[in-house]
């Protein structure tokens, strides 16, 4: 016992500085993320909704009357009885995959173009990162105006060119295409800047050596540029998937808060469960936990895959 106390005391005296410096962050995360997460998990095992949680009406305080329902919420959602979980999940995956793919390829293309000496380079760079400077909700509203069926500028152009006008935000499929377009417009600059940084950190000598050996530009791209970008790409794609999977603003503000839209992703649906109609706190928490678990599983597999690739890459070299 005494030794434990001394160990603790000694470790405290060597580490108290470090602990003091991380303490504020730990407190913030514990109170605002850890505790709510625990509460969310707890709620997902109950039937809590607006009508039975603790609340205060005037001077009367009403105690909570919701009860535990075990795994019932999860069963209802996962067996497809409620909320069309699988179709929403499918669309969320398609949404994430297409957005991140387009972000990455367009970002890579533009970064490659920008990463060479030419006139007006600084100007192009500033213009191309402009969408990043526009807050997402402002950009989304702006696109909503441009997509407007009757008065939008896109349809005005189409009509002038002799095509009929298109119901960008009304049609179920076009809605999705529009949402992807807006999100791609918003997200490309981040990828471009990150990849540009990665490109600049690849030593020139590697390119020169490959060139001496007679590599074509395409071979140089595949064997020098892409491997050199591996760490950057790994990080930005992981972050991109997480951010896009949870992208709330674009879908919520573009397609609108109308009920029963098929184009909702899991996050916006969970939000709507919690704050519209009869507030279904338990259902919303269940969706939230499911989203989190999906992302965690993805992140673990993704990192493992990256680590394996890294090893193979070393072995080949």
């Amino acid at each position, binding site marked *: 016992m005494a030794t434990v106390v001394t160990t603790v005391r000694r470790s405290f005296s060597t580490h108290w*500085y*470090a*602990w003091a410096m991380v303490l504020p962050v730990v407190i913030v995360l514990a109170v605002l993320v850890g505790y709510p997460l625990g509460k969310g998990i707890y709620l997902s095992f109950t039937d809590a909704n607006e009508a039975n949680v603790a609340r205060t009406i005037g001077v009367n305080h009403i105690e909570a009357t919701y009860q535990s329902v075990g795994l019932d919420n999860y069963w209802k959602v996962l067996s497809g009885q409620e909320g069309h979980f699988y179709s929403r999940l499918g669309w969320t995956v398609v949404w994430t995959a297409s957005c991140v793919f387009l972000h990455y390829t367009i970002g890579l293309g533009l970064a490659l173009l920008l990463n060479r000496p030419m006139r007006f380079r600084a100007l192009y760079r500033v213009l191309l990162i402009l969408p990043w*400077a526009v807050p997402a909700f402002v950009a989304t509203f702006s696109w909503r105006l441009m997509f407007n069926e009757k008065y939008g500028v896109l349809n005005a152009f189409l009509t002038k060119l002799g095509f009929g006008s298109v119901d960008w935000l009304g049609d179920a499929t076009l809605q999705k295409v529009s949402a992807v377009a807006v999100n791609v*417009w918003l997200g490309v600059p981040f990828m471009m800047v990150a990849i540009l940084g990665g490109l*600049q950190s690849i030593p020139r000598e590697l390119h020169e050596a490959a060139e001496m050996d007679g590599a074509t530009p395409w071979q140089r791209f595949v064997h020098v540029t892409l491997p050199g970008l591996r760490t950057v790409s790994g990080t930005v794609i992981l972050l991109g998937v997480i951010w896009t999977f949870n992208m709330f603003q674009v879908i919520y*503000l573009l397609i609108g808060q109308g009920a029963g839209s098929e184009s909702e992703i899991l996050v916006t649906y969970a939000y709507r469960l919690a704050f519209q109609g009869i507030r279904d706190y338990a259902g919303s928490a269940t969706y939230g936990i499911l989203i989190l678990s999906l992302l965690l599983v993805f992140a673990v597999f993704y990192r493992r895959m990256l680590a394996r690739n890294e090893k193979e890459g070393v072995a080949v070299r």
Partner: protein
Amino acid sequence: MSAAQNVRPRKPRPREQRSRTASAALHTALVAASVVAVFPVLFIVYVSLRGRDGWQEPTRWTGLDLSNYTHILGETKFLTWFGNSVVVALGTTVLGVLISATAGYAVSRMRFPGHRPLMWTFLVVQMFPMAVLIVPLYNILGELELLDSYAGLIVTYCSVSVPFCAWMLKGYFDTIPAEIDEAGRVDGLSPFGTFWRLVVPLARPGLAVTGFYSFITAWGEVAFASQFMSSEEHYTLAVGLQTFVGQQKAEWGLMTAAAVLITVPAAVVFFVAQRHLVAGLTAGGTKG
């Protein structure tokens, strides 16, 4: 093109030369991409200058006027919301960068029990969908009587931005040589003194990027603000803007004018920080 002729006299270096066609193609591609990037922004500025109903005929030229702006500034609560957003965004930036910088520094330089789990937490917390946190947070803030207040929103936003900032700053601090710290310690500075007087000034690009990130996150957040700020006096811009274009009415003219005014401060912060963006992002973001 001078770029094509501007070849160093040494042996052939095909990568730096470009034929005229290649040059033209390069510039065409970049111009096209720039037009796509800039067009929506310019279009909104243009619509905002066309009076209250100008948005209905986007392609017909009628003069410009500022009536949308005068209406927004004079007859709506726009300025109040703007003030709210400034307070919340600046609060988030200062508080968030401060606490994530100390944490990032500690994680970067000191080996202490709890160091690894903390790094993991920073990554995992970014995966949290706000849908799982928002209801419990709403209850907590309700109990603390912080709903509908600046402080409540600021700490909420900090919980969103701090993990990313701490993670990135840790990577950035890693690139600053540890000899600098040692020199500071030899000269008699405390660990915190070393951090504050030597490392923070050197880490300016990294701090600029995280500050920018915090500011933009707070300036543009919709979900929390829509639920937590219930009285019109306390709306942030993201909530206020939704009142122009609701289910019943569509004041797109006013909306665009507000959009322009909202974007200006964000863009200013952005272009101040953007010089550091490449340096800060690559140093921090790439070392998971």
